[in-house]
């Protein structure tokens, strides 16, 4: 999953550590979210988006599901 987290975080002048502190997670979680190497829970996605002042869809770019029937 791709994200615009890094771009939006820098726009707000936040470091990864600052964002982690605001959201209430560890820095490595923010690192892996930005790299698209971790899919957050809905709650975490909401908290990140809310902290960055954007909607979930603006922060996280969802790809079309590859599962059959979708």
């Amino acid at each position, binding site marked *: 999953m791709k994200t615009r987290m890094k771009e939006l975080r820098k726009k707000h002048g936040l470091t990864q*550590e600052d964002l982690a*502190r605001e959201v*209430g997670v560890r820095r*490595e*979680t923010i690192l*892996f979210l930005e*790299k698209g*190497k*971790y899919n957050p829970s809905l709650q975490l996605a909401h908290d990140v988006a809310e902290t960055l002042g954007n909607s979930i869809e603006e922060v996280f770019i969802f790809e079309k599901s590859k599962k059959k029937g979708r």
Partner: protein
Amino acid sequence: MRRKDGKTRLNDKDKFRVLLGLMVSVLVVFSIGAWSSFSSMESIISGESLNMIAAFILAGAAIYYVWDRKRDVDAGMPFEDEFSKKTMYKAGYYAYFASMYSGLAISMFDDSVARLIGVPMLEAHTAVGMTILVSAMVFFGVVFKQKIKGDV
């Protein structure tokens, strides 16, 4: 729990975990030190040394793990979050299967292969220790793999 200066503080449950992790690691390192001081060269050179080396590495991994978490807390971040919990669950899952299959493999080796090829059978405490160490190495292997590559 966040203090007025914005930094978080370990709650009692996390303090217990940190303390327990450190105590176990120190105990393991102390045991290895005592063993190597009092053991003969023969037993050090034998297979027992592999167990001890693995235990030493695991103690180091545990200390690093606890230190890493404490550093995050001191920087104002939580002791654990959903990513770290998921990592623990995944590591525990694989470690469980590793302990099961390594225990089985070691007992089969002792029962069948050791006699066939004429090597001495493993002592019970060595076999148990090896099973535990395999499980612990798989556990920390998964934890560190997640730390490097994320949850993919």
